[in-house]
């Protein structure tokens, strides 16, 4: 539907992106200021560390998801991949694999899942929504079969402590966002393949006519998303100290929402790395703030919904006014 595309206006894309990013950032800062004034505990080191930890996993998922959405697709499986890979790594550790091997194998499985999605879309001609919905369902099932519906404990202390610890005063989990975010930024905005993600999302046929490897680009996008998700699976396993296939339920919607709040267009060809990060941390801040303010958790849902509308509305406004 072209309802949205008509908003694409005349200003150069880069400048706009930065501006948009800035104002979302301003929004996040505003939220932080308000919370700082209205609670005693918000601006404590401890709470900021909590906040950074709480937003990190969705942030990484949102980056992966953004690659896919830029091509005009969607990846519903990321939550399931997180749960599934938490089981995989727990199983591997429980069966005596060294940590490095367990991590590599888990990420490798992420690669396979992503390639399978690419295969389903490119070769079998399935809509992204369907193939990733199918893996969502199946992966949860396989994970449950592996654990027989229960959980697998992880007894490896260095592994489980990783997500709790800090480096240079900043939680390791947040460092992981940096670790993923910087290469992702370079990849998306400064590499040929990043450019192709946009071109495929903008006009796949034109890209093909220009000699762009459209199929390869799609494989790539879904693989990146799945790898990000399996990386989050590792982080989650480290954080909760178990492998459990039913974890991260609904995280796909949170990741997509973060991405869209961050300015990614579900019609493809519009997106950035900083946007989804800001989106994820805005959502985390809303939750963290509501908890600190002791807002009833039901009101919390109502407010979250309203805030999503307000935030995205103001961004739309600014976009149009440019």
């Amino acid at each position, binding site marked *: 539907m072209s309802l949205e595309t008509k908003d694409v206006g005349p200003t150069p894309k880069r400048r706009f992106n930065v501006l948009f990013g800035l104002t979302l950032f301003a929004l996040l800062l505003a939220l932080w200021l308000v919370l700082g004034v209205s609670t005693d505990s918000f601006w404590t080191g*401890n709470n900021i560390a*909590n906040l950074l930890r709480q937003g990190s996993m969705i942030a990484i998922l949102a980056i992966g998801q953004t690659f896919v959405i830029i091509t005009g697709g969607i990846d519903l499986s990321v939550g399931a991949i997180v749960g599934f890979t938490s089981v995989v790594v727990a199983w591997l550790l429980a069966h005596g694999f060294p940590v490095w091997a367990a991590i590599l194998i888990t990420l490798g499985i992420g690669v396979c899942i992503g390639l399978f999605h690419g295969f389903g879309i490119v070769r079998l001609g399935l809509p992204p929504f369907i193939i990733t919905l199918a893996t969502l369902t199946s992966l949860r099932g396989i994970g449950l079969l592996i654990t027989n519906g229960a959980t697998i404990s992880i007894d490896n202390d260095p592994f489980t402590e990783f997500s709790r610890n800090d480096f240079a005063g900043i939680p390791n989990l947040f460092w992981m966002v940096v670790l993923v975010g910087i290469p992702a930024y370079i990849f998306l905005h400064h590499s040929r393949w990043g450019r192709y993600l946009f071109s495929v999302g903008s006009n796949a046929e034109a890209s093909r006519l220009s000699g762009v490897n459209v199929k390869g680009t799609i494989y790539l996008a879904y693989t990146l998303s799945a790898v990000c998700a399996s990386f989050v699976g590792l982080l989650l396993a480290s954080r909760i*100290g178990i492998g459990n296939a039913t*974890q991260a339920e609904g995280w796909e919607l949170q990741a997509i929402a973060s991405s869209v709040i961050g300015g990614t267009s579900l019609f493809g060809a519009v997106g950035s790395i900083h946007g989804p990060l800001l989106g994820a941390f805005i959502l985390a801040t809303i939750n963290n703030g509501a908890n600190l303010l002791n807002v009833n958790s039901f009101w919390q849902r109502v407010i979250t919904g309203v805030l999503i509308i307000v935030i995205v509305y103001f961004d739309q406004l600014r976009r149009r006014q440019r």
Partner: protein
Amino acid sequence: ADVTIPIIVKDTTSFYWQIVLAGARKAGKDLGVKVPELGAQAESDINGQISILENAVSGKPAAIVISPTEFKALGKPIDEAAKSVKIIGIDSAADSKSFTSFLTTDNVQGGRVAADGLAAAIKEKYGKAEGEVALITALPGVGSLDQRAKGFKEQLAAKYPDLKLIADKVADGQATTGLNITTDLITANPNLRGIFTSNLIMAQGAGQAIAENKAQDKIKVIGFDSDEKLVKFLSNGTLAGLIVQDPYRMGYDGIKTALAASKGEKTEANVDTGANLITKANMNEARAQELLNPKLD
């Protein structure tokens, strides 16, 4: 109130936990303590509960009351939290030695009681505790539900070898799914005599299926926990029995104990708040009524 004692439940969207919170709220009022009511939005959301615990700790409360959503996973975070604040556990256990006090239901025991109740109901109808029975669990990966299933199966194996568990179903937390599974079980197994549904929402669905199929004479269902609807099912015979805990007391005593602990008073390390079988026969006793109709405000 200057003293703050947050209570963290597993899932604020279920009736059971609302009773726990009501008890805690009452205690807060009685004792002049501020009681933030916290909890994740689903019992399976372990990461969510860890985050909530982290947030609660950074608010520097006097103590924290928590019902760990997963035995192993909450162990370390509770140890971590206990470094700065006293922790009182309720309802379920965690892999941690840092609890100052524990007021829990033994869920494995709850499962055993359910098996006893089911066997008794079948025996009453068919003369002997024998035949086919089924188990429906609401969600996979939820610690307390797994423990109930474990207790139920152990007890069947140990005491009722003639009761054959022919289906062990896991749903997706939706009453409708419980309903569909139950109707399909009834269709596929004409000789089915009993079902254990190990939590509230599955009992709702199963009860409805029994009512739809008018099967209450043939098939005995034991549920876990209670609300108005289930009490009605119990009184009209749709359900054969309910295993009922004392959530109100867990909430109330949880806060009370936490306050005492925060003041350095000595508290009891372990309290079993009990899981009781309630049937149509004993449902009008005073204690049963108290458990079935907790006063919420």
